[in-house]
């Protein structure tokens, strides 16, 4: 339909205006390409331990080597895969749970809304990281532990966002108008409410990926990650306990952190831009 193309074009023209949003997109594409085509970009095999440990960055090893002689650059590129995949999976689950609860609470209202919101208020107040740590400790370290722990705790803020957006849509009189023409609740939900909140769900979904990546890095740093499947967080965990500080191995400490910051920041820029754009849609 022509109006779909028109919408995308109009959206891009407004999105383009935000420098940070465009920058976010560029950083993201660069990092993801490097991570996806790791074999091409990575100079060495990430598991090969034949270099001299703690060699500072040089022509041989652009980012030096760690305590067991693994090239940091290669390890970091492959570690990116774990961080990204865990981040996106966890975010996906959280967005699914969060939107489901948000949709039910927003649509059905009444006592369903009341109960779901009480639960959300409780989960959102409980200190997130300590709760995740307790769960992860019992479940034992591992990628799936982190994803599970984060899914249990990460969804409330998303639920609140979606619920409040649904309520503001429901108050708009075009909902009452379509009810007046005889449309049923189901039809109204799918033709009017969902299209108007899908923007917010996407925007929050992107932000959730950032939170998930940061959470994975944090839990892995505490040793709750999977040492066999190294993510950036796990790399920093080993840096911390294998004395990178004592050996002055800054090349082991700085790069993984910068990668986490860059990819999270790109999701943050994109997510904030989407949030502002879709948030305005309902206004005049």
């Amino acid at each position, binding site marked *: 339909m022509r109006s779909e193309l028109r919408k995308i074009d109009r959206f891009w023209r407004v999105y383009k205006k935000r420098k940070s949003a465009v920058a976010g997109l560029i950083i993201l594409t660069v990092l993801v390409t490097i991570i996806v085509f790791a074999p091409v970009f990575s100079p060495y095999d990430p598991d090969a331990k034949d270099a001299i440990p703690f060699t500072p960055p040089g022509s041989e090893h652009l980012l030096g080597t760690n305590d067991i002689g693994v090239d940091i650059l290669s390890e970091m590129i492959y570690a990116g895969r774990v961080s990204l995949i865990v981040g996106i999976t966890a975010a996906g689950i959280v967005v699914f749970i969060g939107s489901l609860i948000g949709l039910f609470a927003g649509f059905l209202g009444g006592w369903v809304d009341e109960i779901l919101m009480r639960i959300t208020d409780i989960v959102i107040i409980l200190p997130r990281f300590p709760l995740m740590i307790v769960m992860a400790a019992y479940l034992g370290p591992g990628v799936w532990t982190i994803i599970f722990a984060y899914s249990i705790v990460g969804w409330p803020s998303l639920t609140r966002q979606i619920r409040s957006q649904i309520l503001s849509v429901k108050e708009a009189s075009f909902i009452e108008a*379509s009810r007046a*023409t005889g449309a049923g609740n189901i039809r109204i939900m799918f033709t009017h409410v969902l*299209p108007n909140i899908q923007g917010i769900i996407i925007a929050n979904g992107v932000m959730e990926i950032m939170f998930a990546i940061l959470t994975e890095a944090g839990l892995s740093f505490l040793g709750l990650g999977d040492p066999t499947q190294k993510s950036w967080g796990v790399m920093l965990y080993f840096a911390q306990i294998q004395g990178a500080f004592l050996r002055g191995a800054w090349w082991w400490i700085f790069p993984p952190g910068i990668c986490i910051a860059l990819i999270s920041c790109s999701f943050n820029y994109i997510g904030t831009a989407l949030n502002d754009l879709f948030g305005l*849609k309902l206004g005049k």
Partner: protein
Amino acid sequence: MDAIYRITDLTKSYPLPGGGLLKKNRKVFRAVDKVSLEINSGDTFGIVGESGSGKTTLARLLLRLIEPTDGNVYYKGRDVFRLNRSELKKTRKEIQMIFQDPYSSLDPRKSIFNIIAEPLKVHKTGSLSDIHTRIVETLELVDLPTSDDFLSKTPGEISGGQRQRIGIARALVLKPEFVVADEPVSMLDASIKAGIIELMTQLKKKINLTYVFITHELALAYHFCNRIAVMYLGEVVETGNIDDVIQSPAHPYTRLLLDSIPPTEPDPDWLDKRFGKSDFSRNAEGCKFFVRCPNPKDSCLHFRPSLSEIKRGHMVACQLG
């Protein structure tokens, strides 16, 4: 002239916050308070009142967009609130509504084609091409362009006046007999407002509609409607033919409303009129207007007047009427 709508003792009350933990002795706010009216086919029935008079709530009750606390609304002899889902849906084809806010009454993400097509899709009338022709027909009715380019526009790309015309088109696309217009022009500029009123008048002649016209502007109702009901704090205080009510108002509130409207020509002694004091405290048992009434009687304090006929078709809820 048969009564297409008969409303008997219609009430809608909302619980007020407060009133003890177990919400026992909760005070209740009656937005619509025992309203009885008759609307004949072919009428342009005006419902006039200030904000908080319950006129909008009444409009929503007529179309059963909200459920009543008490009383019933007979549309063509059948109580709207007793209809089951399918009967109600069928009735909705005949009764439609025009909304006040041009910005929030159209879905910002839908194209104009889809907005007007929705009622047709809900009631599954005809194929896509039938829908297209019906939409073009309706757009011509409301003097809007019918090009494909216009049809694919979204509400964000057109003016306030055009949006209101699309709201009207959406209401007329199912060829209804009865249209409730809730302050259709109050958010528009004067010149555009007059244009919409003209359009609605022509439509009435072309496709003989029955209108219920909700407004707070009595002068507009005088120009547009043939019968009128004046509402105050949820109650109908006066109703009748437009000329009787405007030329010889019986209820003190109607007189106060008429006096308060600034004449369109400079009139030095308009400012000397007394517009009463703005006191909103409410008289629980007796006449609700007692507090603002220019010459109240003691009996008004306890006795709540009900609508009584003072002239053929002209009724008033006041002892002095």
